[in-house]
């Protein structure tokens, strides 16, 4: 009797401790995020997180930078498989179908609770939601999002007698101005190209601009059909090829995604197409006057959106989901979105952010910052299908083969279409 009484006391004590423990429990959150461009995004993320933790002392957020989008996704999958706690992450918006096939994410519609939350879900630019929704549900909250813009060297424009305030607005103007901007030395060697479009890293993304401008979206909404070898797509790739081989305003072969900014800043190309996520590093590094313009139009204007979204993982407790929601709502508050946009060049994802004094003042002094946002009007979803990386590779290979003169656009794109159909056939 004595022992069991003693046990009872022990048990009761343990229970009391447990209850106290739960009441004071901290919620720990781990988030992985990628950085696809230069600059110091991690500093801003850390500052924002500190702000969040001081408002919510019982929630601790561990944010881990994990390389590019692929590295981050790999790390997430590995962590989830190994049972390590990770509740949310910033991952590539176009991974949505694959994350769904893996059955590891839940829609934010199931996480939100109040009407205010639901209104928040609808408060982002509609152009950004195209890559964030599937089957009518929202799986991604736009965070580090971009469009492709054209950076141009105003000094070079002035030097060759072009109006620095009038960047090319059509393909024809692009070629004509590009020709003027090419500069050769005494031996006839090119020291400055008219235009550079990167074709490593994300070739399909740049190609999508040309296809959209030529009036074609490359895939359907369900992500199980692609249109690589339509006449419009072939013509778009031929135009890219011709800029190098026929009009000679662009270097032959492929152009590196990573070093292009240095080439632009070093003056060896007068115009470049690149993500708006590069805006702040370009602003900080340019020793000349530069401008930012929307991409030129052909049949229409256009750019795909790009970048990363917040995803919340299935393996989360209700308490964690509430905390994650709170955190993501904090990160997308207009003022924080504004800070993030100024620090990186990524687009502020909500119209409300542009109503903050902070962003208003910034934009007034630096009008280039709104170009990417204004382009939303013409933006379409970034290329995204089931098994997106593999399907993308067919397209990437075709683009690089054509740009290096190893295949005609027709041949290369037919081959890419075949490869893609083989894979996507299983998802129709």
């Amino acid at each position, binding site marked *: 009797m004595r022992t069991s009484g003693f046990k009872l006391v022990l048990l009761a004590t343990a229970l009391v401790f447990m209850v106290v423990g739960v009441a004071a429990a901290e919620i720990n959150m781990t988030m992985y995020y990628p950085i696809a461009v230069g600059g110091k995004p991690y500093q801003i993320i850390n500052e924002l997180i500190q702000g969040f933790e001081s408002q919510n002392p019982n929630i601790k957020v561990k944010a881990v930078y994990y390389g590019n989008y692929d590295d981050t996704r*790999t790390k997430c999958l590995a962590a989830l498989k190994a049972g390590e706690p990770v509740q949310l992450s910033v991952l590539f918006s176009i991974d949505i179908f694959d994350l769904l096939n*893996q059955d590891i994410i839940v829609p934010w519609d199931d996480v939100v609770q109040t009407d205010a939350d639901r209104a928040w879900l609808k408060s982002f630019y509609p152009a950004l939601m195209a890559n964030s929704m599937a089957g009518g549900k929202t799986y991604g909250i736009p965070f580090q999002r971009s469009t492709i813009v054209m950076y141009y060297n105003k000094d070079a424009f002035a030097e060759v007698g072009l109006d620095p305030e009038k960047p090319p607005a059509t393909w024809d103007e692009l070629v004509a101005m590009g020709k003027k901007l090419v500069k050769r030395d005494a031996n006839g060697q*090119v020291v400055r*190209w008219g235009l550079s479009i990167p074709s490593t890293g994300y070739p399909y993304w740049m190609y999508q601009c040309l296809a959209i401008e030529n009036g074609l979206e490359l895939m359907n909404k369900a992500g199980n059909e692609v249109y690589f070898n339509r006449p419009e797509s072939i013509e778009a790739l031929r135009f890219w090829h011709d800029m190098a081989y026929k009009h000679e305003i662009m270097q032959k072969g492929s152009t590196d995604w990573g070093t292009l900014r*240095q080439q632009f800043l070093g003056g060896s190309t007068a115009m470049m197409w690149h993500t708006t996520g590069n805006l702040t590093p370009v602003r900080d590094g340019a020793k000349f006057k530069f401008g930012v313009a929307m991409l030129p139009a052909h049949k229409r204007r256009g750019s795909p959106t790009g970048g990363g979204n917040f995803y919340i993982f299935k393996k989360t407790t209700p308490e964690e989901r509430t905390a994650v929601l709170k955190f993501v709502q904090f990160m997308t508050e207009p003022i924080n979105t504004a800070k993030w946009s100024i620090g990186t060049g990524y687009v502020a994802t909500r119209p409300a952010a542009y109503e903050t004094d902070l962003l208003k003042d910034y934009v007034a002094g630096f009008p280039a910052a709104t170009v990417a946002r204004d382009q939303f009007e013409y933006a379409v979803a970034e290329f995204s299908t089931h*098994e997106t990386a593999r399907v993308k590779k067919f397209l*990437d*290979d075709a683009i690089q083969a054509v740009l290096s003169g190893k295949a005609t656009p027709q041949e290369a794109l037919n081959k890419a279409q075949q490869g893609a159909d083989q894979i996507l056939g299983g998802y129709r």
Partner: protein
Amino acid sequence: MNPKIARHVYGWLLFAPAAIFFILFTHYPIVRSCYLSFFNNPRGVQPRRFVGLANYAYLVNDPIFWQALKNNLIYAFGTIPVTVSLAILMAVWVNRRMTGRAFVRAAYFTPTILPMIAIANIWLFFYTPGVGLFDNLLKSMGYSGRNWLGDPDTALLCLMVIAIWKDAGFFMIFYLAALQGIPKDVIEAGKIEGAGRWYFFRRVTLPLLMPTTVFVVFNALINTFRIIDHIFILTKGGPDNATELLLYYLFQTAFEFWDTAYAAVLTVVIMAILMTLALAQFKVLERRTHYQ
């Protein structure tokens, strides 16, 4: 306990720590990869299912695999002879009395101690068209620049140059050790017989370096299948698969395409190649020992 058994137990206990790690991190993954290569690629909504040789059939019909294999062979047979010749040359060069010998040796060895990622980043800017080192050099001599990494005809060559630059110094160390192991009496005998320097090198030094050469060649060969860090920085396998090497393709398949089944197949292929090389090396080395 019976002392004989005790000795066996003792031996196995000594062997156990290494064996456990080997089984856990080498043998088990090998067996598991072979096993997985006969299944489909499981996803959250689609369970694992036995598919027999279907993945291998895909391999045979996969043009990117064949391109990667071809690239790997070009890469190996293009780099190894040059690396080995350079290593011998440098070793002979620094294996004599000269002022600043330590400095020259260290200079040759420096590329080896740098991490491949750092090297790739340095060379990335050497190769960058327009603003890079090579283009600037060419321009100063009046030649036109090139899009080194952006042209399928030169991209793989550019990677090979880096491999040679990095490895030659490393293999030099082995040759230097071997040169210093050549017995003095052989050298003296050569001198007394009046052998010329080139004759002596060709008929005495080179044959005595053979075991080192066998070792170096096989290790270099294995390295060409193992070391792909620079591809991540420089070309990502492009343009149009011109620099796709087998291991990089395996990485893409596993971590970009999330296709663990096909990645297992590629693992099996690479393993088969490496095991064949390793076995061949042991066979050849055995014969060389008899020769000595």
